[in-house]
């Protein structure tokens, strides 16, 4: 017979951890995507030369391991006396990390819209903004969506690293339980299942949108 010391209150503890994972992910993906769209448009509009400084900074965020970024950012905010808590620091770092990847996704999406299509919309008297809003944005979104879903899921899993700043998110909550109950396999299985439950709807949403848009392409 299967025996476990895991209680309902332990499960509630895991759920709290999951809520923290969701909160950090939601804030970071939302802020990172907004910044990514802004930076992506700037990169396309400004051209390679003028956007070089921005590109360099984003390259740093893409190349340095997230864990190092978190530890350094935490040290920095403490030295600079910004008074950020672990949640704020985590969200700031993860947002910039997301933005660095999202910028490239957005840039790729915008570049995928043929110049001739954009010229056609401008020739009808549409302004730059109208062209962006009604032609480029919908077409680029279709192209970028699969990569963006991948990024969001990746950030959700990478957010586990914020446990190093002391945030009790899903993985940290599991670790605490493992230490106390000494049932690592069972608890990690549950932890993994919760990660899957969070990811699955996002992945399905992506699949659904792709399908919905595909008859038009």
């Amino acid at each position, binding site marked *: 017979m299967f025996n476990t010391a895991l209680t309902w209150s332990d499960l509630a503890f895991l759920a709290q951890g999951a809520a923290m994972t969701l909160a950090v992910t939601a804030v970071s993906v939302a802020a990172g995507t907004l910044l990514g769209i802004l930076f992506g448009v700037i990169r396309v509009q400004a051209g390679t030369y003028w956007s070089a400084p921005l590109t360099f900074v984003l390259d740093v965020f893409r190349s340095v391991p997230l864990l190092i970024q978190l530890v350094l950012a935490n040290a920095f905010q403490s030295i600079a006396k910004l008074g950020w808590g672990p949640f704020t620091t985590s969200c700031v770092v993860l947002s910039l990390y997301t933005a660095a990847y999202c910028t490239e996704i957005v840039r790729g999406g915008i570049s995928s819209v043929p110049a001739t299509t954009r010229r056609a919309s401008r*020739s009808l008297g*549409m302004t730059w903004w109208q062209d962006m809003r009604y032609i480029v944005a919908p077409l680029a979104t279709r192209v970028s969506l699969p990569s963006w879903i991948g990024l969001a899921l990746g950030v959700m899993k990478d957010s586990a690293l914020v446990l190093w700043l002391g945030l009790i998110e899903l993985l940290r909550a599991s670790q605490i339980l493992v230490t106390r109950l000494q049932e690592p396999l069972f608890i990690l299985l549950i932890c993994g299942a919760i990660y899957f439950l969070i990811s699955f709807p996002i992945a399905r949403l992506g699949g659904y949108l792709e399908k919905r848009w595909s008859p038009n392409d």
Partner: protein
Amino acid sequence: MIEIENVRKSFGTLEVLKGIDLTVKKGEVVTVIGGSGSGKSTLLTCINGLEPIDAGRIKIDGTEVHAKSTDLNKLRSKVGIVFQQWNAFPHLTVLENVMLAPRKVLGLSKQNAEEIAVKQLTHVGLGEKLSVYPNRMSGGQQQRMAIARALAMSPEYMLFDEVTSALDPQLVGEVLDTLRMLASEGMTMICVTHEMKFAREVSDRVAFFHKGVMAEIAPPEALFGAPKDPELQKFLAATH
């Protein structure tokens, strides 16, 4: 009236327009013929303000296209252009493709824009295709949609840039018929084309471009019947 005065335009070191003078009056149909690289398509994109010019002037009803103070977006709603590639907006239905600019640029109500779009699409023979996405139509149908899309802005001038060049041969006829219809309705048009028979039929005047220069311009009977420019003679001999 479209007035083109001594227009020069270079891409890098290559001068594609070497001082073009041309005046097109209201209701006139001018076709432009010539070999590839002769500058004829560039001229159209300059008239629409899509390309800057290096020297000279282009005036549309007295408004200078390339003056800094000119509201190009406003001017463009007056001068429609259709390209070789029809450039349908693939995420919008045929009706939405045609309605978009009247709604957003002219600020028409949805109902009003739809009325105009349906009218123009019916006019070019696509009245049955309103809710279809462009990729489900042939190239000829998409090109006619692009024409309807430009016409929905109620332009006073239409520019056609080799609109049949990218089409399968059996689809060329339907698009040319649409242009003939517009010409017969009195639309002021400049058509860059390789269809000599079409040029001969619809034009009030035909202009021959060669290496960035307008080598000859004359009514079709004169230009095709008794070409004076030696390059035009060669060109006509090669295309017949």
